[in-house]
């Protein structure tokens, strides 16, 4: 059975149910019988949706070939930062567990090389510690015993 998905920029994608239900979000809709009409996805643009559907399709096709699938996944996730974030949010919104985990792993790999300052910049984190509070915490982590 085929389903119709509509991206935020009003593009319609026709997909096999088997592929679309990789998304737990869409799966629930199908199970509740709400998937007869076009399913609107206002939080995912067409560019991202196309990538996501490619992921889902390959996961159905290569289900039995672990090595091939891993190769595909490694290649798939080599995208620039902006696309990676879009994928992350889409995977979260559509509840596609394996895509979400893979995207999070990629972001984790990107972050681990950075200094704390660079991470603040990358993720827009505001340091809400007061200098006294920060000092307090740092003291706790000093060597409490002699070498």
């Amino acid at each position: 059975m085929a389903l119709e998905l509509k991206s935020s920029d009003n593009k319609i994608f026709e997909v096999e149910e088997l592929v679309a239900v990789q998304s737990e979000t869409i799966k629930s809709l199908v199970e509740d019988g709400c998937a007869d009409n076009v399913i609107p996805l206002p939080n995912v643009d067409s560019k991202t949706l196309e990538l996501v559907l490619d992921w889902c399709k390959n996961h159905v096709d290569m289900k039995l070939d672990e090595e091939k699938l891993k190769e595909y996944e490694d290649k798939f996730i080599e995208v620039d930062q902006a696309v990676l974030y879009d994928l992350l949010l889409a995977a979260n919104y559509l509840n596609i567990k394996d895509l979400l985990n893979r995207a999070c792993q990629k972001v984790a790999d990107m972050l681990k090389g950075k200094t704390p300052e660079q991470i603040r910049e990358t993720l827009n984190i505001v340091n809400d510690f007061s200098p006294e509070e920060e000092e307090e915490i740092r003291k706790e982590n000093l060597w409490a015993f002699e070498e």
Partner: protein
Amino acid sequence: MRYELKGNILQYCNEEEEEEALANLIENVIFDSEDIYTHYKTKEKSLLKYHKDKKTPLPNLPELVIYNIIVKIPADYLQKYRYLCKSWHDIISSKMFIAQNFIHSKAELLILVKKRSYFKATSLRMDEKEFDFKLDNFGLARMGRIRSSCNGLLLINDPKIEGKLNVINFLTKCKAILPQCPSGCPHKTCGVALGFSLSTKEYKVVHIYADGFGYEIFTLGCSDNKWKCIPGPFKEPHERPFNLDTFHWSDPVSIHGQVLHWYVSSKEYVISMDVNDETPRKTYLPTPGKKIDRKRYSLLEMGGYLSFVYNVSNIKIDVWILKDFAAQVWVKKHSILSESVNYTVSKNPSLPNKYEHSLPNFHKLVALASLRNGEVMMFKHENSKNDGRIYLYEIKHMELKTFKINIKDESKVVPHRSSLVCWKTESDLLPR
């Protein structure tokens, strides 16, 4: 008590807890036939705002997605990222997070080298894909002897005070000092390990010195701060398989801190103890037809199981694993055959020429540890002339490689994974 040992064992939380935490990544999904929208408790507005305002290149990610990302960052980096902001500090300090982060922690081998009265450690990490490794310094320049590792915590002799044991996490800089054993053991020729009981969620140090004295067990954070003694594995002196004059207990093989196995110089069995029930028992070795020579085998942890590595001949080594501890079922995992091995010699100028192209005599290879979840085995060459020679064997492709690193006869190898487990007082280590 039945339990399951798998490759990436969940030591801290059981499976249901892990599933639950990950399932909560999407909360309160509401469906309407006209619109689908996902409600996040606090972040809904910023999520929709991001999509309208594409000028900001980097979004404010929902907190649960941030959790899923930082849980995958190795513990040593997270130690620094604690100070980024309060929310990161809270996440990184939570017990559930520490447990889930530990699941992603990469295995390393700590190679200990004695330097006069102190010890130094080097950490060896296998490359994920290539048959290669990296060496790094580990811990302090002058440490005591590292005995055991569990959940990122190291059980280590005090470098200055004889008979004193400490439990240290070098990453979070937490230290617990153990009281002296009732037996007065100086901890030089005994068998001790750190374990974690899944049933009671307690860390236990299990020690044996003279088995007539019995086992001494200490629970970290216990209210009376005392060791408890339980009977040793042998009731009568004649039951002992070893010669009392020449034998001394050594540190057991620890299967992820759950089950401990001691070599007792026997051709039939090893002594095992499940940390959960603290009951010693005999685990019979596999009987491959011929009688086992008690000097020709090693015990190590491999992919979550006890492994019995037997030097059958100078061209054959059998590798068995204890697939089922409770039912004592052994499975032969692999046979290393001299004729089937692909031997590559690294371009190491320090290797003496005559050893370069010949396969080692398998009788002389002593299995030390396994890597990459049981896919790779590490051996050392017994011959002291080959001081510092180690061999790495990759099971799937039967590849053997040799390296020279600073490892001597008395050097010990301790498998380790770092974690963020921390405590202010030892009672923090007990379950709440």
